[in-house]
């Protein structure tokens, strides 16, 4: 049997082999497109080999960069101290204002029964261990998987804002697609006025560090600086997670909607650790009558 297989591969002409492999590739693409679970055993198996390697290299890298950083820091610290003392004075004066504000906020939140709803969800911390190899996609691998309760569709947050969504979960690792990825659309709303809009990633804006916001009603109160959070009506994202602040808005040609740019609160360039919310948003699927 083995020899037969060997003879077969030896005698197979390269162009026939190319044809055969192309058919296999297209077949696999179709199969995994229709049923993503088809690829799960392969993902798990490969994960056991590659993930430990990536973790190891990351650990070495973190150690090295920490040593380097420490030396750099000592020099910078003295300068920073002077700057910071100045800043402390400014901030202290601001603080009193904010304390007033935050007390008011607390009261109002209790009043409206608007607790930070996503604080009630169970979360798990994870580290980013690898990034997508090119720059076409804004996806990264984290070091936790279904063994830790993560499943596809979990929301990922960091720095108090939305990072993205788990698009594929294997036993020991998961792939997260960031909200700045070109294919991602998030149903969002203004934090204060609850007016709906759509936030979408855009490959062409990544260099500028912002993403698109669109479908804002022309007469809405959303303007530059408005905090945008995930909406109640989204079928994938838990409500009330901060996405970012509006940078600028212009009225569309149709005069009915406005669109523009939004600066995410998360700094995707320096992101290292994230929190994964373990609950998946439950949506009611309407039955066909």
């Amino acid at each position, binding site marked *: 049997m083995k020899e037969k297989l060997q003879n077969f*591969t030896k005698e197979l002409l*390269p162009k026939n*082999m*190319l044809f055969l*492999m*192309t058919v*296999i*590739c*297209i077949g*696999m*693409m179709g*199969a*995994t*497109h229709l049923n*993503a679970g*088809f*690829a799960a055993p*392969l*993902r798990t198996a*490969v*994960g056991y*080999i*590659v993930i430990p*390697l*990536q973790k190891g*290299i*990351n650990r070495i*890298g973190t150690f090295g*960069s920490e040593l380097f950083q420490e030396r750099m820091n000592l020099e910078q610290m003295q300068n920073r101290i002077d700057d910071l003392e100045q800043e402390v004075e400014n901030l202290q004066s601001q603080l009193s204002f904010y304390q007033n504000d935050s007390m008011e906020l607390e009261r109002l939140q209790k009043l409206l029964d608007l607790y930070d709803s996503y604080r009630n969800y169970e979360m798990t911390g994870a580290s980013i*261990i*690898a*990034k*997508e*190899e*090119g*720059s*076409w*996609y804004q*996806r990264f*691998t984290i070091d936790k998987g279904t063994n830790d309760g993560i499943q596809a569709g979990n929301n990922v947050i960091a720095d108090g804002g939305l990072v993205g969504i788990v*698009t*594929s979960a294997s036993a020991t*690792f*998961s*792939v997260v*697609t960031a909200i700045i990825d*070109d*294919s991602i659309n998030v149903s969002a709303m203004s934090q204060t006025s609850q007016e709906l809009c759509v936030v979408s990633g855009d*490959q*062409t804006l*990544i*260099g500028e560090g912002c993403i698109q916001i669109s479908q804002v009603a022309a007469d809405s109160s959303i303007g530059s600086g408005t905090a945008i959070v995930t909406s109640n009506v989204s079928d994938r994202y838990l409500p009330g997670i901060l996405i970012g602040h509006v940078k600028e808005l212009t009225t569309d040609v149709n005069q009915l909607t406005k669109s523009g740019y939004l600066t995410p609160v998360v700094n995707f*360039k320096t992101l290292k650790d994230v929190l994964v919310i373990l609950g998946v948003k439950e949506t009611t699927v309407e039955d066909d009558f």
Partner: protein
Amino acid sequence: MIKSMRRVFVAAALIVVFYVLQTTLLHWIFPHTAPPNLLLILTVSAGLLRGRKEGMMTGFFCGLLADVFSGGMLCFYSLIYLYLGYFNGILRKSLVSDLPLLPMLLCGLSDLFYHIYIYTFSFLLRNRLDFTVYLEDVVMPELIVTIAAGILFYGILLAINGALEKKEKEGASKFVS
């Protein structure tokens, strides 16, 4: 049999090592742009040094590894790497000197085709028509670093291939005598 097993083992190890380097270490060396595409360099080199069949198989598995960790459908990357391995394999006979001029050129050309493939199937079909912007932001930076890294890594792969061939010859002569 042992000979081909050794080849397969070395190729598998190279694919994994190149992939891990590309997704971790190279991201720190190139924090602001895309890192060089090592899997592509490996595929091009396999085609050039070993011919169409091995180019194809190396490409297929390079792509499969990238597919596994992209979380999308399988064999999306495999398909393009498969063809890159095949077409670079055709040019094996034109590789006359050890100078990395032709490999450099082919790394660049292959990378361009690779990006056009991704753009076409992943962006153009979603009505993202601004190819020039993507060319400037995504394709060109990676193309340049890939060509540069191509010289270095092609050299390494050439040396590994040489060492393996030497060992195979030794084994063959032992067998004859």
